[in-house]
C-alpha cells in the first residue's frame, strides 16, 4: 500500500471513479449547450439570460462546475506526482510539487467561488 495524503479521495479507486463520473458530467454539459446553441440560431441576450435563470440549469451548471474542479484537481495532482518527483528534479522536488499543488488549489478555489457568484448573480 502506497500512502499519499494529498490525493483527492486518498484512495485510487475513488479518484479513478470521480475522474470518470466528472468527465461524463462535463461531456453532457458541453453536449447540452452545443445542442441549445445549434437549435437557437439567433440567440439574443434575453434568451441567454433566461436560460441561466432557470433553476434546473443553475443546478446543472453548479454540478458541472464542481465536477470540473474535482476533475482538474485529480488531473493536476496526477501530473505533479508523475513529473515533479525526486527522480526528475532531485532534492527540491517535494517543495516544487507542494508549491505547484498549492497554486492549483488556489486557482481552483477562486474558480469555484467565482463561478458560483456568476451563476447566482443571474
Amino acid at each position, binding site marked *: *500500500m*502506497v*500512502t*499519499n495524503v494529498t*490525493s483527492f479521495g*486518498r*484512495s*485510487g*479507486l*475513488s*479518484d*479513478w*471513479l470521480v475522474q470518470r463520473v466528472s468527465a461524463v458530467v462535463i461531456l453532457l454539459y458541453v453536449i447540452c449547450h452545443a445542442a441549445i446553441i445549434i437549435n437557437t440560431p439567433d440567440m439574443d441576450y434575453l434568451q441567454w439570460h433566461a436560460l441561466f435563470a432557470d433553476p434546473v440549469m443553475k443546478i446543472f451548471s453548479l454540478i458541472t462546475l464542481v465536477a470540473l474542479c474535482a476533475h482538474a484537481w485529480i488531473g493536476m495532482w496526477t501530473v505533479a*506526482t*508523475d*513529473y515533479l*518527483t525526486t*527522480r*526528475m528534479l532531485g532534492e527540491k522536488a517535494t517543495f516544487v510539487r507542494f508549491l505547484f499543488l498549492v497554486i492549483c488549489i488556489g486557482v481552483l478555489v477562486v474558480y469555484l467561488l467565482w463561478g458560483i457568484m456568476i451563476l447566482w448573480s443571474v
Partner: protein
Amino acid sequence: MKVSVYRYNPETDLKPRMEDFDVTIPDGKDIMVLDVLALIKEQDDSVTYRRSCREGVCGSDGMNMNGVNGLACITHLSEVVKNDKLVLRPLPGLPVIRDLVVDMSAFYKQYERIKPYLQNDDPVPAIERLQSPEDRAKLDGLYECILCACCSTNCPSFWWNPDKFVGPAGLLQAYRFLADSRDTHTEERLADLEDPFSVFRCRGIMNCVAVCPKGLNPTRAIGHIRSMLMERGT
C-alpha cells in the same frame, strides 16, 4: 550491417556513448539479434549483455532493439532491422550496470510486493489442494510470464514511479493470484492495491501488451483487478 550498441561502464565512463560495429551477416540467413551480439563479442569481448537459455524462456536478454523492447534471442533481424541498421540499447528506465545490463532491483521489488505465492489459511489437505479444470483455465495467460521486464520498462507510468506503481508485470502476477481459486487472501491483496499508485497509475496506454514476447496482456489483467476493486469498494 551496421550495429550501434549502447556502451556504458558507470565505474570508468562519465557518460554513455553509442559504439558502431560492422557485422557480416551470414548470407541468406535471418539470424536472431542475440546471434548478432555474439558476433560483436568476437570483435570486442568487453561488450556486455545477459543471456542464458537463448530460446525465450529464461527472460535474461530483454533489451531495446531499434526502439522496441524484446528478447534478443527470439527476435529475428528481419523483425527489427530497418535500412540495414540496428540500434541496441538497454531496457529503458532502469539504472545501467554495464552496457546492455540493467539493475532490475526496482522491478523485482514490485514483484515481491504483490506476494507472488499462494496464500491459503484453510487446513492443509492430506494430498493436495484440488482445483477444477475451469478454475485452472482462469490462470491461462497469466502464469506464463517469464519476468523479462520488457513490459514494465516500456511503461511510462513505471518510468515515472517505479517505487510506487507495481507495473504491468507485477500486476499481471497480482491478478494471477487474485484469480486463483486456491488463494484465500483476496481481501488483503486487494486492500494492498487500492491506493492511487499501485494499480491506478495505469493509464491503459497498452505499451506493455505491444511488447510482451510471450503475447500476454497485462492491461486486461489490470482491468480485472480494477473491476475487483470496484466490486469490493461499492
